[in-house]
């Protein structure tokens, strides 16, 4: 079973990478980008076939490790 976990910064948290990218895009002459925020994506392959169990596993993975909930939020998506 395949899943995707998206970890993004909470909106109140400063994102230096996003800021730098905005600046770089501007100086590269890419027009019309108002803002960029960078996050992480994890493509996870799971042994479980049961979606409920898979979801529980991923939740545990996020809470324990993948996201730092002080600054980040996460979202779990199932792909195919």
């Amino acid at each position, binding site marked *: 079973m395949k899943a995707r976990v998206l970890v993004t910064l909470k909106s*109140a*948290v*400063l994102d*230096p*990478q996003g*800021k*730098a990218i905005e600046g770089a895009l501007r100086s590269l002459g890419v027009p019309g980008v108002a803002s960029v925020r960078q996050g992480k994506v994890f493509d996870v392959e799971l042994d479980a076939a049961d979606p409920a169990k898979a979801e529980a596993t991923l939740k545990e993975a996020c809470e*324990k*490790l*993948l996201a*730092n909930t*002080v*600054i980040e939020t996460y979202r779990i998506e199932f792909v195919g």
Partner: protein
Amino acid sequence: MKSAVLVFPGSNREGDAARALTMITGSKPAMVWHAETALPAGTDLVVLPGGFSYGDYLRCGAIAGRAAIMDAVREHAARGGLVLGICNGFQILCESGLLPGVLVRNARLRFICREALLKVERNDTPFTRRYAKGAVVRFPVAHGEGNYTADVETLKRLEGEGRVVFRYVSPGGQRDDTQVLNGAANSIGGIVSEKLNVLGLMPHPENHVDPVVGPTDGRALFESIAGALERA
């Protein structure tokens, strides 16, 4: 005094920390592997050294923050034992919940190795007793993710409780947020826990202890610890 230096896969300044401790406190620390579940009996000081634990993949300090040994470190801290986290060690302390906030990529996104000036904001901690209050010291930094961040309330609390121990300053000794190396909130270089027994800082005092290789402003930090433990 008995100190323990933790070693995680990817730690790389554990030797520097051990050398500084040995040189200044006169006793050699125990090197403790991350998979251990207990600290050596009678440990007074735990040092989390610099490096790239687990490659700093995912987030710096994240994986190490969840290592087996960290439960023992938490207990040690809860008992009032001293904990010093330097650079990656600071990152690990934040990730493990022993200190608030988090360290993210430097504002300019580049690794930076440079001597930085820091103001010693208070000298009533076990780590800073041998510095004058307000003294400006020179410690090198060597990090790509030293940009301290926390939410507004946490920052307010830290400042209110006077828990910022080291702050990056300009040569004049003034806090100067435009001069910071890494974009850290409030120019924070190091913070201490509520009970003052856990210090995390990004710069490397252990690399400024030996006149052969540079200034020696870091010595007093280790002397402070030794002194504090002697008195205790």
